[in-house]
């Protein structure tokens, strides 16, 4: 049982002398061993606390041992360490003398640094190192490249993968993975689980050893020998009660028996939250396919080979394959990425950089604020600094002294920052539903750790330099004569200019942040509550993919859908039920190229592609999707009756802009002609890319599909119908699992979760910025009023009224903010354009919002100016003049 090594090391370093360290660290070790009986965790915590306390004490003793009690400039013979120690002690004393400003600075810094630390933690966990496998730097992801764009990551065809694996020497253990979510049938109710088909080397490539049993062997990549499975640890615990006897038993996946050969280690769910893995076996036909690209390929760099070697070799191999298979592989290259790059969601980058940028904005505003406070403090200490300069301290030395103070402020703020980051991250992580979090590698590792602590300390030091340097340089300017004179107001002019500039900068930075926050909040609101084209309230949804073994053909699909919709529709409290291949906002789609009767069919690539939906008759009722003209489907639209279709208004507009589409004919290219019987409203399928996409609807009976989503409109809260709905499907086929059972509102929430995060974080930052900016304006005004007490007294003695004085002060606050808002508005409009163009797409740049937030800023600043103004107006002219 060993105490925490880092704590031990820190303590030993702080003590310094070897013998002394041995005794002290040994004592603590001895006591730790005793404390462990009370619990390992508690002992670790205890050890840390004691070690840090001792370390601080010893360090302090060492630094100050023998130092003179007063900050007398040390003689040139003194060591640098000794000099520093004196300065540190002096700085600490200076900070303790003014507890309130010190507390404000530390709090501001803690929040600003905390925001940055939190964002960095997210970037670190999701982008920099989402995977924690041994030697993960050596694991690579190999993709095909698209002829159109060299840098698009494309999935790989089986034949190309097999050729790569045979020919590559720089990348070993090439492993392909194919998405395979399956119906698991076992001792309990059936369940949809996330599975992956993987090559035999899969576990070896990642350097992961199964917790139980084994991974796959090469012979299991052959058809017939491929019915083996490795279960995920969670699945094993949950469904099989962690029974080790599971090895050698069979589980039923998609209606077929698979032998369980292993259990993955706890926490392993690569890729994408996989819960079960089976060998990826190709039959001869599949192995020869070069145009069906559906494999994700990873591998391990051979010892001594670099990523560049691998890239060069794969390029050569791909080039050879291009020549060999000129038709299928035309312009198809290959690219090697690190695993982290290769598996990262391409959409994540811009969002995260936006957050990081906003966090930096907040930090900058915080810096401006703190610089302001320090300037005010420097004014109070003007005389002290002047004296030090006068008796011979060099300017560098005074600057150093002030910087040390800033540095100490920064470091004191670090624990608070980490605490704030920890709290914020906990909220962020827990808000994400598990069903989505599994697609984000690294999501659950987001937290404060040693690395983040180091980064935060570095940020604190950097920030301290930024906010400390300006006031330090400014206050140490050698203008002794003025400062030493008793009035000393002549310096105030230039310092006030600096302070005003800082306050203006704060306002100017806050406004764009507020506008960005407002825009993203409005975007989310539109996604969630804007017109969807249908009514998502009061609807329960769920999905099913029919097991091939049990429902092999179209007739079986029809039977199943018919019975399921019937059962769901007759549940108590249900108004109507329907099924469709795809429902709006679901995370999948199907589209087809269409041909219009009487119009020549264009070349491939220029054809009209539309959303393709097959639906049971009552879908339009359940979703309250309005039929504009014509009719909805009826039970009469059956197999063998006239083939019909309903088109969306956008499709009708695209192909029959001037005429009535009812009665006209269209078809899926290569399919049978369909007669249009109705036109329905447009729906939002995806707020980003599919807002009013042309859509065709076919009767499910005439074009059945083996997968479907059910929608059920209930008279009460749809969430309460979950259990009954699952039972209704089980009554049709008790081996058929359903999944994603949730209300339509939940579905919409899931779909927009990324943007909700953007909005929540931006709003937090925006509010931060607002508060900081107002505090900034307030502190400048309060300071200015204090400084002008004398002047105000003179004015009032000469007949100025209280109202005049108020006007003067509030007016100054207003002018300050006005300038800030004007600059900020220009920035906000530019930023708004960026957001409009790049990220959200649906939120128009809104000048009213810029104006609104600008007005809020000005109003708050006036309030911030009013408080000191009231104080100014209450000045007793006689007292003010006498104060000189």
């Amino acid at each position, binding site marked *: 049982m*060993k*105490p925490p090594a880092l704590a031990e090391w820190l303590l030993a370093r702080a003590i310094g002398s070897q*013998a*002394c360290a*041995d*005794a*002290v*660290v*040994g*004592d*603590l*070790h*001895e*006591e730790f*061993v005793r404390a462990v009986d009370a619990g390992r965790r508690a002992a670790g915590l205890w050890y840390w606390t*004691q070690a840090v*306390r*001792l370390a*601080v*004490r*010893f360090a302090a*003793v060492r630094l100050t041992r023998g130092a003179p009690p007063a900050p007398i400039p040390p003689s040139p013979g003194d060591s640098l360490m000794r000099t520093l120690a004196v300065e540190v002690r002096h700085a600490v004393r200076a900070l303790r003398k003014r507890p309130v400003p010190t507390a404000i600075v530390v709090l501001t810094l803690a929040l600003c640094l905390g925001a940055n630390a939190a964002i960095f933690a997210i970037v670190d966990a999701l982008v920099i190192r989402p995977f924690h496998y041994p030697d993960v730097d050596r694991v690579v992801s190999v993709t095909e490249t698209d002829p159109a764009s060299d840098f698009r990551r494309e999935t790989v065809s089986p034949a190309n993968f097999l050729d790569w694996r045979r020919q590559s020497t720089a990348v070993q253990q090439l492993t392909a993975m194919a998405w395979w979510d399956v119906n698991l049938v076992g001792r309990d109710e059936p369940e949809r689980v996330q599975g992956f088909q993987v090559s035999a080397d899969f576990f070896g490539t990642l350097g992961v050893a199964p917790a139980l049993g084994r991974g796959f062997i090469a012979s299991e990549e052959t058809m017939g020998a491929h019915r083996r499975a490795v279960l995920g640890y969670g699945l094993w615990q949950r469904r099989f009660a962690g029974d080790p006897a599971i090895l050698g038993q069979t589980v039923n996946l998609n209606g077929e028996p698979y032998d369980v050969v292993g259990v993955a280690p706890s926490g392993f769910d690569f890729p994408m939250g996989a819960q079960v893995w089976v060998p990826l076996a190709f039959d001869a036909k599949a192995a020869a396919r070069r145009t069906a690209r559906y494999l994700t390929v990873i591998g391990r760099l051979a010892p001594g080979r670099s990523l560049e070697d691998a890239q060069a070799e794969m390029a050569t191999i791909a080039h050879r394959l291009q020549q060999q298979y000129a038709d299928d592989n035309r312009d198809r290259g290959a690219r090697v990425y690190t695993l982290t790059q290769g598996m990262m969601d391409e959409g994540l980058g811009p969002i995260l950089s936006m957050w990081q940028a906003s966090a930096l904005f907040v930090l900058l505003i915080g810096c401006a604020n703190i610089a302001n406070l320090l300037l005010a403090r420097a004014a109070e200490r003007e005389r002290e600094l002047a004296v030090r300069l006068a008796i011979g301290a060099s300017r560098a030395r005074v600057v150093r002294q002030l910087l040390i103070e800033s540095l100490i402020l920064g470091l004191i703020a670090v624990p608070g920052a980490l605490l704030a980051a920890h709290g914020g991250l906990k909220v962020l992580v827990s808000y994400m539903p598990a069903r989505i979090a599994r697609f984000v590698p690294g999501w659950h590792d987001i937290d404060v750790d040693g690395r983040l602590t180091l980064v935060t300390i570095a940020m604190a030091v950097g920030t301290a330099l930024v906010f400390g340097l300006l006031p330090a340089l400014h206050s140490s300017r050698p203008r002794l004569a003025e400062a030493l004179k008793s009035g000393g107001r002549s310096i105030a002019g230039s310092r006030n200019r600096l302070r005003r500039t800082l306050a203006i900068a704060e306002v100017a930075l806050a406004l764009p942040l507020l506008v960005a926050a407002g825009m993203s909040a409005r975007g989310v609101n539109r996604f969630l509550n804007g017109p969807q084209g249908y009514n998502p309230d009061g609807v329960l949804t769920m999905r099913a993919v029919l097991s091939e073994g049990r429902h092999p053909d179209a007739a079986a699909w029809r039977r199943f859908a018919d019975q399921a919709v019937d059962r769901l529709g007759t549940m108590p409290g249900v108004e109507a039920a329907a099924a469709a291949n795809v429902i709006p906002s679901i995370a999948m789609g199907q589209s087809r190229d269409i041909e219009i009767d009487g119009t020549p069919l264009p070349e491939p690539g220029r054809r009209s592609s539309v959303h393709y939906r097959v639906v049971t008759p009552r879908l339009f009722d359940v979703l309250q999707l309005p039929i504009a003209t014509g009719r909805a489907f009826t039970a009469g639209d059956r197999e063998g009756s006239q083939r019909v279709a309903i088109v969306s208004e956008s499709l009708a507009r695209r192909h029959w802009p001037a005429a009535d589409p009812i009665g006209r004919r269209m078809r899926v290219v290569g399919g049978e002609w369909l007669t249009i019987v109705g036109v329905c409203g447009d729906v939002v399928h995806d707020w980003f890319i599919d807002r009013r996409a042309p859509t065709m609807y076919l009767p499910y009976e005439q074009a059945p599909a083996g997968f479907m989503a059910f929608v059920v409109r209930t008279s009460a809260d749809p969430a309460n119908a979950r259990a009954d709905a699952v039972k209704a499907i089980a009554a049709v086929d008790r081996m058929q699992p359903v999944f994603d059972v949730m209300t339509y509102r939940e579905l919409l929430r899931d779909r927009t979760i990324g943007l909700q995060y953007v909005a929540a974080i931006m709003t937090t930052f925006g509010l931060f910025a607002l508060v900081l900016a107002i505090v900034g304006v307030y502190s400048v005004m309060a300071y200015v009023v204090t400084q002008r007490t004398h002047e105000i007294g003179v004015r009032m003695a000469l007949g100025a009224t209280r109202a005049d004085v108020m006007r003067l002060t509030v007016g100054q606050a207003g002018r300050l903010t006005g300038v800030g808002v004007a600059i900020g508005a220009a920035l906000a409009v530019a930023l708004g354009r960026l957001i409009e163009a790049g990220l959200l797409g649906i939120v128009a740049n809104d000048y009213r919002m810029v104006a609104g937030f600008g007005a809020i800023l000005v109003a708050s600043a006036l309030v911030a100016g009013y408080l000191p103004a009231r104080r100014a107006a209450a000045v007793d002219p006689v007292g003010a003049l006498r104060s000189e």
Partner: protein
Amino acid sequence: MADAYLGEFEHIVLLAILRLREDAYAIPIREEIEAKTGRSVARGALYTALDRLEAKRCLRSRMSAPIAERGGRSRRYFTVTPAGLAALRTSRRALQQLWQGLDEVLDV
């Protein structure tokens, strides 16, 4: 340094070391003080006091052989030097003089 002036805590530490005889290293010293005086002692304060007493030559320390349950580190055993004993004697005498005739005031 027979005339070394002892602070209250130093006084207590020296007495605790004397009571422990052969077994006086930091952990038992701290425990002894806490047990007998009923007040808790910060580890850092004790180490500082021990160092200070050694600097005043009231204490001498030696390192033991490495011990496994301390992660192979040595213990630092303390003994009170003749100078330390003299300082204690001086303090005790001074206190006794001052205490004389005060018992009924304090009602002990």
